[in-house]
């Protein structure tokens, strides 16, 4: 098919903290470069950013506590205008048992958040988007990157998704084929498990010594009764309702105006294929500590998102001919503290510095773009991630081993007993069901706890209804036969948006995909035991509305 072509110097796929930092920093650097009179003259207008969401920030979800150091480098006077909500005033680490909770008398350093801010990532990113657009960068909202344009040993741009295609793949009246956007440098900033990043990593074998492993974070924002929580109070919880064999924990962050952000993060590498992360989160809310906090309050918003847990040894090679990978797509996350916003911003900035150098030299091959990797190694990104390079792997056999191993790492600069520690993809942890009957589904009481459909409603998710299903299952027969037998169709359980459903058909079961519910968390692409689900971008503008999340 012939597509309309457009050429840019730099194309950034995804307007999150990493992509926008890259765009803003590059625009600033170009301004300085041009002012110095050095050739070639460059222009911020030749930077394009694609964002699949309805608007900038619509698909941003995080806890979130942000370490402000990277933002301070990007926007030195950020405190004047950034929507930071509130500084952390008190950080607690709590251990939950079924009936009670214990606070660590001295908050362990990884849980200490003095100097950090409780933020809404969606609000912060929206604000950054404003700065980026004001700098002259073109941000195309409601356009997703659907395909990569491969060239040589790398990439030369992307093709955006076709619009106006009906359920059966036929063009509708408003059919517009996707654009072919070519760029000297394409920056993949798609967030965790980027659909283009996944293809590139597989094709060019960019994987590190460990595969990337992921967690899922499920979050609700609540408006609570006045006096229930102080703004700036942040707590992390360990233990109940997760078993000691599972890796994860909860968060409770006090925001301004009696708003509280609560959530549960769980590593997608558990043994029971019918474990239901959403139900675990709802159960967690019934703990007396949370029950008391939320009593008389009201659910404001819901969302879910995966996050890359793997750490330093799971980061893919992040430069190819004509391409760089930044932010969560590149695994820039401190797997001990589960903090990634500042690393995403920093990675975007280092990418921008690399790109300026490459544009000046007129050479955007991997040979030149490799300085991105060097810059990362010399920056605090490596310093922070190197210290905890074996942290997540130590919990492979459960909480107790993990505490011992990671304790040893703490005093040996991250080395511990073995270095590097290897890991397996999370979906390999599933154990077969061997005919065990399916558990009953979580229903919720409608006040404190909710079923998934009610929660999805509060994510503000919408998609054009008449479009091809964006969740591509390679072989539906596997779902109705092998998976029923072996794993009991985990997709029905791990999806936090009730997208996957095994419906009765005749004597058997058939997979039904309610794609319009999808909150773009990518869990299915990650956690499917056969790795036959491919998450692709739906028509631009579709997806959740995470305003305020």
């Amino acid at each position, binding site marked *: 098919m012939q597509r*309309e072509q*457009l050429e840019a110097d730099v194309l950034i796929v995804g307007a999150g903290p990493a992509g926008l930092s890259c765009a803003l920093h590059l625009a600033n650097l170009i301004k300085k470069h041009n002012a110095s009179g050095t050739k070639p003259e460059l222009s911020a207008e030749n930077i394009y950013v694609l964002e699949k969401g309805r608007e900038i920030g619509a698909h941003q979800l995080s806890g979130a506590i942000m370490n402000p150091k990277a933002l301070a480098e990007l926007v030195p006077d950020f405190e004047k205008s950034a929507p930071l909500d509130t500084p952390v005033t008190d950080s607690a680490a709590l251990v939950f048992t079924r009936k009670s909770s214990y606070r660590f008398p001295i908050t362990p350093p990884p849980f200490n958040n003095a100097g950090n801010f409780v933020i809404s990532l969606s609000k912060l990113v929206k604000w950054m988007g404003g700065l980026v657009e004001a700098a002259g960068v*073109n941000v*195309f*909202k*409601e*356009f997703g990157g659907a395909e990569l344009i491969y060239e040589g040993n790398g990439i030369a741009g992307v093709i955006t998704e076709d619009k106006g295609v009906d359920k059966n793949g036929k063009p509708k009246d408003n059919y517009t084929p996707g*654009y072919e956007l070519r760029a000297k440098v394409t920056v993949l900033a798609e967030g965790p498990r980027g659909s283009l990043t996944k293809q590139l990593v597989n094709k060019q074998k960019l994987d590190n010594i460990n595969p990337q492993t992921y967690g899922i974070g499920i979050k609700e924002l609540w408006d609570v009764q006045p006096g229930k929580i102080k703004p700036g109070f942040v707590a992390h919880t360990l233990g109940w309702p997760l078993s000691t064999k599972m890796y994860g924990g909860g968060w409770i962050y006090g925001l301004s105006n009696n708003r509280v952000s609560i959530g549960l993060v769980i590593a997608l590498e558990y043994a029971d294929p019918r474990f239901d992360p959403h139900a675990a989160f709802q159960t967690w809310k019934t703990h007396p500590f949370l029950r008391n906090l939320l009593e008389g309050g009201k659910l404001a918003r819901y969302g879910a998102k995966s996050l890359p847990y793997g750490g330093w040894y799971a980061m893919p090679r992040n430069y190819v001919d004509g391409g760089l990978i930044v932010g969560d797509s590149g695994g820039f996350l401190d797997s001990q503290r589960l903090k990634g916003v500042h690393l995403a911003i920093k990675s975007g900035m280092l990418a921008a510095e690399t790109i300026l150098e490459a544009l000046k030299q007129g050479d955007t091959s991997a040979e030149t773009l490799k300085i991105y990797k060097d810059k990362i190694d010399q920056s605090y990104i490596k310093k922070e991630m190197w210290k905890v390079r074996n942290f997540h792997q130590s919990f492979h056999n459960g909480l107790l081993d993990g505490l011992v191993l990671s304790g040893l790492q703490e005093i040996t600069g991250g080395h511990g007993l073995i270095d590097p520690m290897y890991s397996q993809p999370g979906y390999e942890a599933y154990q077969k069901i061997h005919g065990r009957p399916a558990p009953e589904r979580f*229903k919720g009481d*409608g006040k404190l706890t909710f079923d998934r*459909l*009610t929660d*999805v*409603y509060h994510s503000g998710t*919408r998609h054009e*209804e*008449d479009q091809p299903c964006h969740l591509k299952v390679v072989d539906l027969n596997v779902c109705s036969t092998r998976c029923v037998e072996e794993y009991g169709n985990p997709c029905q359980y791990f999806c936090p948006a009730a997208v996957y459903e095994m419906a009765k058909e005749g004597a058997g079961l058939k997979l039904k995909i*309610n794609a*319009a519910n999808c909150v773009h968390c990518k869990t299915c692409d990650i956690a499917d035991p056969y790795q036959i689900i491919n998450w692709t971008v739906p028509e631009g503008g579709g997806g959740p509305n995470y305003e305020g999340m």
Partner: protein
Amino acid sequence: MKILVITEQRQGKWNNTSFETVVAAQQIAAATAGTISVAVVGKGVTSLAQELATKNVAEVLVIENDLLENYTPDGYCTALKQVIESAKPDLVLFPHTYQVRDFAPKLAAMLGKGMVGDCISFRKDGDKLVFVRQMFQGKTAADVTFVGATPWFASFQSGAFRADLLEAHPGGKAPVNAAKVELKPEDIRTKPLELFKEAKSAVDLTQAPLIVAIGRGIKAPENIAQAEAVAKALGGEIAASRPICDEGWLPMERQIGSSGQTVAPKLYLALGISGAIQHVVGMKGSRTIVAVNKDQNAPIFEIADYGIVADIFEIMPALTEELQKARG
């Protein structure tokens, strides 16, 4: 520059974007010291041609043929190809209509030339003629120029030029000439049937006073007839929750809820609908809600004025019978 404008008419009625395109041609001609021919295609279009002749153009071409009475892509392309080959224009302009979208790219391809579609303006850049077209849903505009040999093809978006700026002919009237085209019936591979307008959704649920809505509890499409019987006996409309329309068991326009219609009838009878919030937001304003569901914990009962915990397959026939009796 020699400009040829292809106007559009159907059964003697103008598509008014045609005049906007003539305005575009007049402005391009003014900028390039060009001349304009305007073509009208069809059968029995002389009076339309006379109307065009009063405008500021050099010539009106009448392309008439029995086989052009109704639009067919083959007929138009074959005829216009001959006209373009003999008139040798540098630039061929079209209004960007649905019909033009259908045949103009094909015509350009037949002649091996380029086409720039859906332009919003033009400008003269040195000796280059630059066309401007929108991209990314209007977020940005691209400048496009032709590099190949003439004739060039371009179409202008509806509303891009103002038809009221159309200049009248200074000397009264432009000559009207017939353009000779040869068409054989076998050139035309499609047979136009009668024109029709797609029926608007036959039902406006928002205006229905009585609605019988079905959900997953209906189980299979063959069971819908039972619910339709209830609706008929009640004199109401049938509607559904999302899964039913997703399956294609009922058309999308009968879907109630956040991704469908929002209704507030006098009576809403929910059959086998669990009452997920996505559905409830579309009908909670109903004056009276009656819900039938097997599951006594179904959330629909929280908003129902009357609830029946029962199997809908027992209720539906019984209800139909009673309603018919009551109506006599």
